[in-house]
């Protein structure tokens, strides 16, 4: 039953984008003209076709990633892992998802989306007896445009802004803009990238609770949209739909910045599993 719920969440994620993302794409289309407008129109028409046909909106259904917030006293913890792996194999057949798991050295495709380390499952233990699974399908094109910058602390906040702007410009059309940008600051190399990943899990427009970080998000969004990279890198006002920042304290000698770009095809779903066994997919 949990497995079936995860399969339907995978189907939902592969064939649609969250409502607020579609809304943001509409707004972007309305303020663009020329090529930028045509690209956004094609994106919106594609969402319509995918919805009507129940087909994956992008052929690259990514490497399924699951972020599990597991309540420490949930009675379902022992079965979660099996349910996730089983659901991925089943969804690969039935949605279908494109088999995207290949051997790291030989490139041989497992055909099932299962393999060493995939699907990606990240665990976070929290208080309570509920489990909330956030699942995400992110294509290889935007994943390839990930960056880690180990800045000198002397570069300061200006250095962080500079790193983000320069990265977005150098990525150009490759990550399928308009993107959602996740920025992680501090912590260390791996932590900065993990923070950027967590930032991407937030809902569109949901600002960081810290006022200084929220202000940085707003500023970065406007800077990035001034670059003119535009939809698909062909020029325009809309390079990103949103920027989210997460931060951790850092070593005084280090200023790590992790930058992840999520393509416009933000594919997400949420599965909530209550202690009593009831399941909610959204």
């Amino acid at each position, binding site marked *: 039953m949990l497995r079936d719920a995860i399969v339907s969440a995978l189907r939902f994620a592969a064939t649609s984008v969250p409502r607020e993302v579609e809304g943001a794409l509409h707004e972007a289309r309305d303020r663009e003209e020329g*090529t930028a407008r045509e690209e956004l129109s094609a*994106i919106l028409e594609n969402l319509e076709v995918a919805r009507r046909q129940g*087909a994956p*909106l992008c*052929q690259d259904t990514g490497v399924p990633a699951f972020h599990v917030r597991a309540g420490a006293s949930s009675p379902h913890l022992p079965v979660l892992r099996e349910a996730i792996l089983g659901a991925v194999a089943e969804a690969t057949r039935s949605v279908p998802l494109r088999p995207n798991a290949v051997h790291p050295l030989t490139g041989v495709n497992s055909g099932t989306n299962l393999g060493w380390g995939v699907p990606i499952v990240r665990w976070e233990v929290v208080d309570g007896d509920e489990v909330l699974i956030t699942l995400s399908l992110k294509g290889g*094109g935007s994943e390839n445009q990930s960056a880690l910058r180990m800045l000198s602390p002397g570069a300061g906040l*200006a250095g962080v802004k500079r790193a983000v702007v320069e990265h977005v410009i150098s990525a150009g059309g490759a990550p399928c803009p308009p993107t959602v940008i996740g920025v992680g600051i501090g912590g260390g190399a791996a932590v900065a990238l993990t923070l950027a990943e967590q930032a991407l899990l937030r809902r569109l427009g949901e600002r960081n609770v810290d006022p200084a970080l929220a202000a940085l998000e707003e500023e970065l969004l406007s800077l990035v949209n001034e*670059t003119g*990279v535009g939809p698909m890198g062909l020029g325009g006002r809309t390079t990103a739909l949103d920027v989210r920042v997460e931060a951790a304290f850092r070593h005084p000698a280090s200023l790590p910045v992790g930058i992840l770009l999520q393509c416009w095809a933000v594919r997400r779903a949420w599965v909530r599993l209550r202690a009593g066994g009831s399941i909610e997919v959204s």
Partner: protein
Amino acid sequence: MREIVLPVPEEEVRALRVGERFVLTGRLFTARDAGHARIVRDLDRGHALPFAPVPDTVYHCGPLVERSGDGWRVLSAGPTSSVRLEPFAPRLVRDLGLRILIGKGGMGEGTREALRERGAIYAHATGGAGALAARGIERVESVFWLEEFGMPEAVWILRVCRFGPLLVAIDSHGGSLYEEAARSTDTTRQAILSRIEEER
């Protein structure tokens, strides 16, 4: 919108300029990293490609395909990032006589030169718009190297009908939308960065 029927003569391709939109009808093949590497290896060894006659149009795409009876059905088939294929593409243009390359994100100098020399173009398809693209794919004619490479990397021979809309992004006269875009972002980049520095 202008419709181009494959195979397309050189004069017709030479007449296309960056910024024009068109749709495609006819026979084309998909190839990504593994397909390109294998094609070049076969060319080096003087082996005939298994999918002769080779269509004059390549689509940089790893489609999502499902079995349908004893054939196949394409569910979603948007473009992949073409830049990964830059090491191979000029060779394919010259040795296979390709007229149209379709992908996203643009290609390098080597490909632009080959396109100019041979009278071919690079066309942009909207990234991520896989369901929309699949609507223009009539049927799968055949598939090669499926066992070896798996679904995304295999070479799929497709019949398309009014496939697109596509955008001429690099034409056969050296014009490139990416170069135009890079020039313009270079200017804004300087302006943004100096403002960031001033606020320091």
